[in-house]
């Protein structure tokens, strides 16, 4: 299955945000929901099970100067095996202008047994733009060994590299469950917060040596990285300071 | 009983002919004289560093690099002892290989030396304390200009006889804790005789830091080496 979706937000000139483009196709359907604060909130509504190996899903997000967008997903996506020797792919491209803010706070990606999945994010934030970006990965459904999954995140800030990280789990990733990478933790993820109005916070390790707060080299950005025994614990570690779990 | 040399107030002098320089070449002009302080665990290396800090307070711009097997133990002691501004002390991690860090792979120590000079300005004297080791550890000439090897009488009066590169080749051998000699039944004259046999003309000093908290004779020896270092540094290099 192939699907593409687009979300383009602009400032509405009255201090708010307007969506000038919002379209998708199964299983990448986009729905705007009402928000109390400024900015718009959009949910990605999965229209089918999956992704299944062979699927190719693309989402393009553009946030113009002065606009603010939060994106959630309604449920975890479960990467499943599909056609033999095929890989499923989800690519999110995001462009965030100066004075704009994008908060990408989806539900987890679950790498089911036998899956072959690549989740790619390519984000470009102009100087003066703000970003929260969360990636969460659960290795296998309950009691299951995961298939191959790669979560690959590339963020540029002001045209310079800010973050490049690619986490690989599964049979093709040597040592992934071992003490150098995840130490047997079934859930892992990171939350990047880039906020031009706040300097990066100093490094700190919490939660019994399972969560680290890491100031990045390339800008006023902090990465929280975590391993956890379950998705719920992971979410507690990777919830941005002022972001409630869901926006109603 | 104490051997006679311990009462001899003159600093042992190893180059009686002033026209001949028996020393290995010294540091490039202008940089600090680096003195390594090695020896077995507990012999009093850190105590000697502290004593020298007291001795040179207000006299020399001094820095200290420590190589304790546990990174910060010696450095912390010196900071607590209040004998030196903590900014003038750096600790080097040695990966359980204290002798490697001062002899075979000296980069981390050289880094620490450079960082100190950058942080507090040009120094005149840099003391580098090795992590406590056995009798085989010595400093590389790439790291220090002079080395002092510290043993103590409590280690037994056979230590000088056992030799090892520290005892035989250090520029100065210090036999510390003479105050304990009666308690441990160490015969200082035996140690003195053995040290002479091992070391030829190289100087040996008996010391009790407990009784002499500024290690006066060791400080005097360093002053002497330092003046020599400065004199050499002042001589223009190249053909006369």
């Amino acid at each position, binding site marked *: 299955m192939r699907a593409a979706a687009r979300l383009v937000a602009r400032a509405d000139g009255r201090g708010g945000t307007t969506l000038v483009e919002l379209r998708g196709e199964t299983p990448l359907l986009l729905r705007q929901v009402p928000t109390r604060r400024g900015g718009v909130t959009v949910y990605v509504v999965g229209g089918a099970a999956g992704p299944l190996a062979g699927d190719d899903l693309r989402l393009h997000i553009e946030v113009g100067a002065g606009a603010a967008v939060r994106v959630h997903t309604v449920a975890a996506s479960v990467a499943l095996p599909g056609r033999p020797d095929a890989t499923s792919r989800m690519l999110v491209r995001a462009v965030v202008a100066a004075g704009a803010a994008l908060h990408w706070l989806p539900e987890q990606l679950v790498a089911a047994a036998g899956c072959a999945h690549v989740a790619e994010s390519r984000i470009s934030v102009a100087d003066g733009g703000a970003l929260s970006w969360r990636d969460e990965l659960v290795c296998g459904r309950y009691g299951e060994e995961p298939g191959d999954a790669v979560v*690959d995140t*590339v*963020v*540029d800030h002001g045209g*310079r*590299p*800010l*973050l*490049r*990280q*690619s*986490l*690989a789990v599964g049979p093709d*990733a*040597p*040592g*992934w*469950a*071992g*003490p*150098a*990478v*995840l*130490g047997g933790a079934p859930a892992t993820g*990171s939350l990047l917060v880039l906020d031009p109005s706040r300097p990066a916070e100093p*490094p*700190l*390790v919490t939660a019994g*040596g*399972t*969560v*680290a707060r*890491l*100031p*990045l*080299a*390339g800008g006023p950005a902090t*990465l929280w*990285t*975590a*391993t956890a025994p379950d998705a719920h614990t992971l979410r507690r570690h990777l919830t941005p300071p002022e972001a409630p779990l869901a926006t109603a | 009983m104490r051997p006679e040399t311990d009462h001899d107030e003159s600093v042992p002098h190893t180059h009686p002919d002033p026209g001949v320089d028996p020393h290995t070449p010294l540091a490039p002009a202008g940089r600090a004289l680096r003195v390594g302080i090695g020896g077995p665990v507990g012999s009093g290396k850190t105590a000697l560093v502290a004593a020298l800090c007291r001795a040179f307070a207000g006299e020399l711009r001094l820095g200290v690099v420590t190589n304790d*097997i*546990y*990174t*910060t*133990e010696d450095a*912390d002691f010196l900071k607590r002892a209040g004998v030196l501004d903590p900014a003038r002390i750096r600790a080097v*991690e*040695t*990966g*359980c*290989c204290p002798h490697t*860090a001062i002899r*075979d*792979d*000296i*980069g*981390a120590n*050289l*880094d620490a030396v450079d960082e100190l000079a950058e942080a507090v300005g040009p120094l005149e004297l840099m003391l580098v304390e090795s992590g406590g080791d056995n009798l085989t550890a010595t400093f590389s000439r790439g790291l220090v200009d002079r080395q002092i090897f510290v043993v103590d009488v409590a280690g037994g009066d056979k230590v000088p006889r056992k030799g090892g590169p520290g005892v035989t080749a250090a520029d100065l051998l210090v036999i510390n804790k003479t105050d304990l000699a009666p308690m441990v039944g160490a015969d200082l004259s035996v140690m003195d005789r053995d040290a002479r046999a091992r070391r030829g003309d190289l100087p040996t000093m008996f010391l009790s830091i407990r009784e002499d908290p500024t290690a006066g004779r060791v400080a005097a020896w360093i002053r002497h080496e330092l003046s020599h270092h400065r004199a050499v540094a002042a001589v223009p290099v190249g053909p006369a």
Partner: protein
Amino acid sequence: MAAPSLLLLLADGRFPAGAHAHSGGLEAAVAARRVTDLATLAAFLRGRLATAGLVGATFAAAAHRAAPAADRRARLARLDTELDARTAAPALRAVSRRQGRALLRAGRTIWPHIPFADLPGAGGGPHQPLVLGLLGAAAGLDRTETALAAAYGTVTAAASAGVRLLGLDPYHVHALLVDLAGACDATARDAADAADGPPEDLPAVAAPLADIHAEVHATWEVRLFAS
């Protein structure tokens, strides 16, 4: 093989570039009781090779590739920021630069003609793989050999730290390294191939625990290893 002896020289743990003082994250993993014996050390080495090993080897290979280029300085500067972006933990960035400084100190004395001045120097020194890349090129190693020296160094440092920290039998630990030899060679080949790509596409394999361990380690008052 262009310069086998020089490859051995650069890969030798006795080469005076400070390797003995670094455990590659093992000291913290041991303290966290995640590595306790041969089996867990083996898993640690495998994971480290596939993550930091591949990234370091690729950047060494990329610096090797940049060495003869006319715009070497600009390329190395770009690699420097790219490697920073792949090293989220400030403690690991500092360690990489510290090891780079140590290698640079050795290299400057041993190979004074190498254009080290083109290395980006700000922020505590050049990243170690970039220095290694220039050294490898100057020593006449090819790109894969240079990558091999890097990959090999990431596992041997941790392995010998395992001997020292856990008192493991050195023969058994070396048997682990023998088991890893094929993976190490393959990592070097992958790294050399990847180095052809644009800098933003170079591998960025992450290891959450490596970041966490490094930051924990950096806070200790008492530690045996510098990393």
